[in-house]
């Protein structure tokens, strides 16, 4: 059976819907499939790490209620999310999660 590949996005209950929407838009713009799931309450890094450990692409995204977004990789040790951003940069974080999967250089957060 063909296994579907995607990047899981684990978020806490009560996360701002705009943050989630932005992260998803970033992934969609880059053309990488994703799937969202609400997970038990924990910090953004823990969410991202759990997502990564279940991810067919070894990459996972976590979003916590406080608006922190992380991109984690299964191969990286605990306590070291690869990327951390605030919710307002969700779009770029989503894009970068996808670009990590594609092997493309990452985008900088535009200042100002």
């Amino acid at each position: 059976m063909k296994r579907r590949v995607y990047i899981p996005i684990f978020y806490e209950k009560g996360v701002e819907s705009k943050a989630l929407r932005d992260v998803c838009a970033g992934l969609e713009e880059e053309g990488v499939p994703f799937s969202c799931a609400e997970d038990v309450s924990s910090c953004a890094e823990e969410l991202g790490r759990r997502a990564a450990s279940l991810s067919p692409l070894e990459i996972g995204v976590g979003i916590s209620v406080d608006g922190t977004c992380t991109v984690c990789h299964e191969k990286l040790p605990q306590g070291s999310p690869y990327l951390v951003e605030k919710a307002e940069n969700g779009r770029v974080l989503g894009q970068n999660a996808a670009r990590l999967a594609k092997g493309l250089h990452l985008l900088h957060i535009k200042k100002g």
Partner: protein
Amino acid sequence: MPELIAGVDIGNSSTEVALARVDGGRAEFLAQHLTKTTGVKGTVDNVSGIRLALKKAVEKAGVSLKNISRIRVNDAVPVIGDLAMDVISETLITESSMIGHNPDTPGGAGLAIGITISLGMLASDTEAGQAYIVVIPQEADYEWAAYKMNQACERGIEIVGAIAQKDDGVLIYNRLRHKIPIVDEVASIEKVPLGKQAAVEVALPGYVIRTLSNPYGLSTVFGLTPEETRQIAPIARALVGNRSAVVIRTPQGEIVERRIEAGRLTLYGRKNNVSVAVNDGAEAIMQSVEKTGGLLDVQGEMGTNVGGMLNGLRQHLSDSTGQPFSDITIGDLLATDASLPVSIGGAMAGELSVESGVAMASMVRTERMPVEKVAQALEEELGISVEVGGIEAEMAIRGALTTPGTEAPLVILDMGGGSTDAAAVNERGEISSVHLAGAGDMVTMLIDAELALGDRELAERVKKHPLGKVVSLFHMQLEDGTMLFSGSPFPPDVYGRVVIREEGGLTPLPANLSMEKVREIRRSAKRRVFVTNALRALKQIVPTQNIRHLSFVVMVGGSALDFEIPQMVTEELGKYGIVAGFANVRGTEGPRNAVATGLVLTAAREVTL
């Protein structure tokens, strides 16, 4: 009685010291050190650098500065080099009329021709039977933009393409019921003229646009006359190789390629005076330099680019040597063609066009360097007797001859930062030398300009170190295609990028540069300067002018330490049957320390005599 002697070589960029115990004509080398030259070569500012180098050398040797009985300083060659570069062609868009760029993720694919219209006007200002290209500003959310366009479609309005300011081409595309090509990330979207005929083309991933990069494609799209086609041809050329593009036809708008009046050079020589137009390119200039039979001076036509360039050079040299402006004469010139990426005036998405340019290195003969003053200052400061010993070329040859497997007659190529020097010694021990413009600094300038880095420091590092491309969290591809595994993950700032591999770590380069391109420009810059100069220098120094009559060529100097320059020269000279390689001074020092070593050895010989 044994004597401790230090040889000091003050170069344009580095100061080198060799420390040896000399006893009855035999020199036993104890230590050496290399440091940056302080101040302009041949000025009293050099003293602090020399003192530092000496201190380090005695430390290494385990002796005290006081034990040194004599310091020998080289008689520096009185030449100084300088660089200049300018474009000789220029592409101008008098009215904004094209967008050609490579967003990572444009939407859809295909070619669309229609009238530009803003998203806001879609509801009111449209007529049936007309094809439209929608211009979407960044204020418009992708959901909203897609909704408005779908709505218009339902009303029967024909939307064939779109131009978006933000990076959401794919997002909009995914939400459209009627699929169209979309070019996104157009920064200055407000410059896109509305109500004008335009064409949007997006190629499939891995392909490049075909219609808008073809002059006849453009003439077909816009129904142009032969005269108009000729005018629009530079647009097509500027769009070649892009994945997506927009061309907007504004009646008065045109793009022109202008040949800048770069001016003429007048070369005054021993045999002939030759005049050459800079627009003829570097090859013609270099042929003219050869025709002069030995360059005496160069003048640039007043009021032109090259005139300004040469005057700038003279001014700079006059400032740094303290000689009057009118006394500066250019003794050698190395010109090379350069492809310079320049941002196009009136561009809407930061497009660059590659213009042709000429880079020039020139060398100026100055009056004798006041090395005696440096020697005096050094003597006063350290309380050790300092002497100025011998001609630099002779010292360098003496040092180079300590390379195992060499013998006179031989030629040394001193490849430094500011100039390329050659010295030859024949069977009778007679020495001759030449000094040519163009060396390591020119390579750096070319790399900086051709990669549009705008950072001399970064260009210097590109020159000195090999590249890699980080392809995953744990893998890096090297220039030769091999993969390097890393035990710890690469940080986000280098992920997916071309990097400079230094001992200290990785330095990322701008994302638009590919490893192949950077490598090609780096190698070609080195070849254009050092291979060209090696051949020029050898031709001038061989009495017969036929470099096949040489057998040994030894490379010394900072640029001989480069990881690829010596191989390039070895390869090229190999074609003439010459044994060429970089020196290994005293069998241990590599291409460094030749002059300092030569200074000490000369002193040792004087002892025996």
